[in-house]
């Protein structure tokens, strides 16, 4: 169990741009990070031989050995709590928690330590750690497998929360998260795991920066994770109806890119926030409130949100009713006082 500091035989240098699924991009990031930094260790439940239930850690143990990617006993507080100790002692743990609901046993460690140790010690102890959680629904998963719990983390000072919506951002954001000296909760939209896109491994992205995913002049849709794909679909559908719809991919929930979001909404005067999680006291309500405050004079209509209902996540056969969809977004857009328009 000693780190081999010898050079690891990497595959022949590959071109830096290729087409990958988000899952493959994440796998590549982990491999690249392990290869580059001997402090990086990947662990969790079933991440070793199995390669993770979503195969994001596929092949890592075989390629880099048990010291770099390994299975733990089945205990999430144990996973995060030991990661805290490792981070105190020179490692960069990247842990996987299998589903949102199964991250909950680790909640005390995350809130009381991961988020607070650097502050507690006046920066004496940093927490360079990534907590990866496959999040969100839309994959027909049974109860406890489709939740969106970003609000719990986003409300907790000291944590950085990011979520990619493209394979490129999956790669670049995860690289940035692993390099960050601060603890990052990395939310992987399960529904997008198998969507493909170009990935330039040399491209970087700053944590804390939102992305204009689509230009538009009439209304701004603000989303993150799997909802970005939905927002883009809605924008297409809206275009067919003659509306020019802008889409902002928030990407970094905390820190939040007020500048990009505020400028976007000020330019259109109308906004809809989209997220899968229940709406009450959520990241969506936060974004809605921020936009209202910062764009008050610019707004033609109240900012709307389209979120999951304030109910437990639906069973597979009912989830299509639960989840935000294109129609619901278009309805929200329709409600934005268009009749008042000059």
């Amino acid at each position, binding site marked *: 169990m000693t780190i081999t500091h010898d050079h690891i035989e990497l595959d022949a240098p590959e071109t830096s741009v290729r087409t990958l699924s988000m899952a493959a991009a994440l796998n590549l990031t982990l491999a690249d990070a392990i290869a580059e930094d001997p402090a990086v260790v990947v662990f969790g439940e*079933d991440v070793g031989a199995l390669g993770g239930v979503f195969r994001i850690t596929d092949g890592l143990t075989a390629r880099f050995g048990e010291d770099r990617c390994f299975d733990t006993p089945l205990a999430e507080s144990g996973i995060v709590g030991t990661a805290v100790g490792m981070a105190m002692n020179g490692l960069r743990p990247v842990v996987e928690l299998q589903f949102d609901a199964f991250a909950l046993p680790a909640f005390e460690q995350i809130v009381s330590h991961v988020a607070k140790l650097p502050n507690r010690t006046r920066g004496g102890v940093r927490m360079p750690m990534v907590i990866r959680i496959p999040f969100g629904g839309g994959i027909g998963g049974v109860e406890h497998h489709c939740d969106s719990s970003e609000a719990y983390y986003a409300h907790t000072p000291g944590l950085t929360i990011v979520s990619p919506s493209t394979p490129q951002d999956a790669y670049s954001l995860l690289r940035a998260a692993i390099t960050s000296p601060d603890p990052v909760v990395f939310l992987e939209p399960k529904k997008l795991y198998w969507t493909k896109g170009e990935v330039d491994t040399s491209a970087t992205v700053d944590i804390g920066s939102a992305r204009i995913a689509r230009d538009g002049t009439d209304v701004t849709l603000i989303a993150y994770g799997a909802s970005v794909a939905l927002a883009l679909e809605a924008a297409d559908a809206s275009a067919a109806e003659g509306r020019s719809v802008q889409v902002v991919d928030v990407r970094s929930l905390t820190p939040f890119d007020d500048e990009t979001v505020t400028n976007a909404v000020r330019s259109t005067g109308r906004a809809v926030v989209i997220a899968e999680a229940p709406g009450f006291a959520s990241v969506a309500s936060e974004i809605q409130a921020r936009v209202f405050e910062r764009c008050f004079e610019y707004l033609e209509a109240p900012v709307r949100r389209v979120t999951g209902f304030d109910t437990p996540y639906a069973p597979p056969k009912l989830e299509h009713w639960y989840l935000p969809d294109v129609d619901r977004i278009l309805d929200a857009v329709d409600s934005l006082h268009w009749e008042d328009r000059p």
Partner: protein
Amino acid sequence: MILAMHPVLIGFGKEGERMTHAELLPRDEAVQLIDATGTAVADDDYRLPDSTALLTAYRGLVEGRRINDQASALVRQGRLAVYPSSHGQEACQIGAALALRDSDWLFPTYRDSVAVIARGVAPADAMVLLKGDWHSGYDVREHRVAPQATPLATQLLHAVGFAYAAKQRGEDTVVLALCGDGATSEGDFHEAMNFAAVFHVPVVFFVQNNEFAISVPLSRQTAAPSLAHKAIGYGMPGQRVDGNDVAAVLAVLGEAVERARSGGGPTLVEAHTYRMQAHTNADDDTRYREREEVQAWVARDPLTRLHAHLTTSGALTDELEKEITAGAEEIAAAMRAALNTDADLDPEDLFRFVTTERSPQLQEQWHQLRDEIERDREAQRSGGMR
């Protein structure tokens, strides 16, 4: 469903009494009453259940196996979303169900559908979760079976609280709580064992150690001599049993249940068994275990050994065997029929059970959804888009 059992009760475990190490520690070897060839094994402490009991158990095993295999087939046919099979673990499933009285309670996991059905729940109701219609599909009070738990080890605490309430009311209910080897690593396992022992409640913790937690082998879960060795750390007796020997499971659980019923407090029982199939259909177990390892367990199959034992003893006749097989086929056919029908699901159900009274917020959200649905219908009727 209740077996006439004569568990060997040892006179310890009364509230406030301290047990000796020997009483708290499990045996070095798991209790076995019928070996893999079907031969009875003599035991000083546990008696072989009589042949009526063993025949009842045999019927359960055959039905359980059939249910497991039928459910797996229904997954392949797309009628179930997912199925965590207990193929190979049927002796634990049936032993758990038969060790209890009707008035007792079972707290099962996602893997324990066979035990749930053996308690009397209709197979189709037990499959509602796995079909995706709702999160749980049976009346927990009618069958005294808690909803199958997904978050690992959490149900063990519910079992303890449930038993506490029963004890407080002076009822003689016993609660049997199931979990896997992996779940013993969770903090909730620890807290449940400890609360049970401190409050001396009538709970039996039954760990089906099937050697794997998805892909993670037992050696990565624990370095202990056995999982049953955890019991002494809580001051409750621990025992190990051959989990593929339904006779031994019945005897050991039977003893633990009777001790619990008579005020002797909780027990931890670890069954040594094996998960013969992948974790669920979504899993690929070739990634993490050798086929030879799996094959080696075929010889220890719980059905074959009881079949051999009962055939040799003459208790199981060809005729009876046929009748049992036919019964199992009937159950499978009913399952197929039930699961091949699509349930008529009501979207308003999403809002119906969240709280007793629907909040204005939820009512508003339901009205929004209802309007959407109506507009959809309208649009479909008029052939329009949205």
